């Protein structure tokens, strides 16, 4: 007998069985919608950060490691679960002279980083606005080597972006760095930070 013999027609379903089928589909939509809402809420959950001395207020991702004691930044937030590179968001304040422009600040950062980061290279520079204020955006790339010689790993390629906003003799630099393959996936965290940051 052939394995591809035509199937017998299915027995007819009663009203309860038909409605069970319809409601299973509706349940699937509701539950998956709930699941995706939970996922988006968890991924975009933030906590407030405020530094009155530096005049910066922002929403940073909840559950990240927050460091406010660095000499060259106001806040540094890192994702403790990220591998192999801990995703970084940072806000720094740099004193500037009266003739400074966002481009000059980015030039300064480029010179300083070229000496510090292996294979540092600027990718693009563009204008943008941060909460209505003009700003300059720079994307760059560099490699990071494992410092422990007993952990033989290949170098990581790190992609970063800085946005510079000038304010009364200071440049506020908002930074995002991520391992290159995950850069685009987590860029929304940086965009969220840009949307919530208040410089006063």
């Amino acid at each position, binding site marked *: 007998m052939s394995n591809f013999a035509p199937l017998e027609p*299915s027995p007819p379903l009663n009203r*309860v069985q038909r*409605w069970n089928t319809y409601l299973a589909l509706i349940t699937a939509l509701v539950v998956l919608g709930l699941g995706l809402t939970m*996922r988006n809420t*968890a991924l975009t959950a933030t906590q407030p950060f405020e530094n009155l001395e530096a005049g910066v207020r922002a929403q940073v991702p909840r559950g990240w490691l927050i460091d406010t004691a660095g000499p060259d930044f106001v806040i540094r937030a890192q994702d403790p*679960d990220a591998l192999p590179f801990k995703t970084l968001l940072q806000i720094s304040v740099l004193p500037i002279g009266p003739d400074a422009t966002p481009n000059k600040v980015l030039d300064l950062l480029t010179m300083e980083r070229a000496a510090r980061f292996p294979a540092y290279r600027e990718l693009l520079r563009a204008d943008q606005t941060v909460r209505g204020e003009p700003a300059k955006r720079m994307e760059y790339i560099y490699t990071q080597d494992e410092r422990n010689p007993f952990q033989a790993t290949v170098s990581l390629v790190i992609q970063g972006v800085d946005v510079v906003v000038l304010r009364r003799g200071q440049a506020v630099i908002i930074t995002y760095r991520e391992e290159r393959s995950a850069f685009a996936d987590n860029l929304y965290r940086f965009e969220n930070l840009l949307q919530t940051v208040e410089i006063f």
Partner: protein
Amino acid sequence: MSFEPMLFGTEEEIAEAQPARRVWRTAWLEVIALFLIALVLYTLTDILGVLSNQPAATSARTGIAVLPVLSWLLITYRAERHTRQPRPHLVAVLLLGALVASGVAVPLEEELFQPERWLPGLDFFGRLLGYAATVGFTAEFLKYLVLRYSIWPRHISQRLDGVAYGLAVSVGFATVLSLRYALFTEATLAATALRTVSITLPHLASGVIVGFFLAELWIGRTAILWLSAGLVLAALISGAHYAFRAIAIVGSPGVASTGSSPLLGLLLATGFAAAIFALFAFIIASADARAALALSRHLP
């Protein structure tokens, strides 16, 4: 055919009354076989040091990952072929389970749900509900779709039929997930075996639930939300396993250990499967006994 209690019936009488194969014995055998294989490999690698603790070859890892389907073929399918009325299309259902896992569940998990990005940061109940509402429900809904649009209701004549087909689709589904781990993770044989078992056994448990609820929908008198409740229950069971697993395998780090306890993960997966099997065996036996009693009262 008599529906009197069959405790004192001969084997022939019991076989006459139950022409299709009972599923629990072979299902338990599969669980025990997988548990023992993982336990032996773990002991040989992590305790006795007989096997290398270096990553195994891809072919060896693949061999471990397909153990659930091999054990299903050798234990369940072989027993099925030797009964008077073997259940048809079991292999086709298993293959469909593998197909929907590979074509739908894995891409959804990797590209959309991405549980590793957000679930570890949640508390116990957050992980349970988050996993159940995304990865867990998707898996159970896909298994339901396979069963609903292949063998249901044409090949469902008793509650155990639903369980048998639910187990088959789950084996296919879990094998794809195990293969994904084996092919793309540099792991030892023992780690691959532990992961394979911890993937497969919870899927078998939730497959029993989906199969039972589908069979009952055809055989019994059910409420209008019966199927939805079954799917949500199966998803919650997989979510509970995920949440408990995070507690079980991440222990307290100490001077002599890294804090990881894979053996607890193995025991947890086995315990989940055993508890669900025992519970649904009892529920099905009770429902069958009630149905038989009701029928006997209506017979002259």
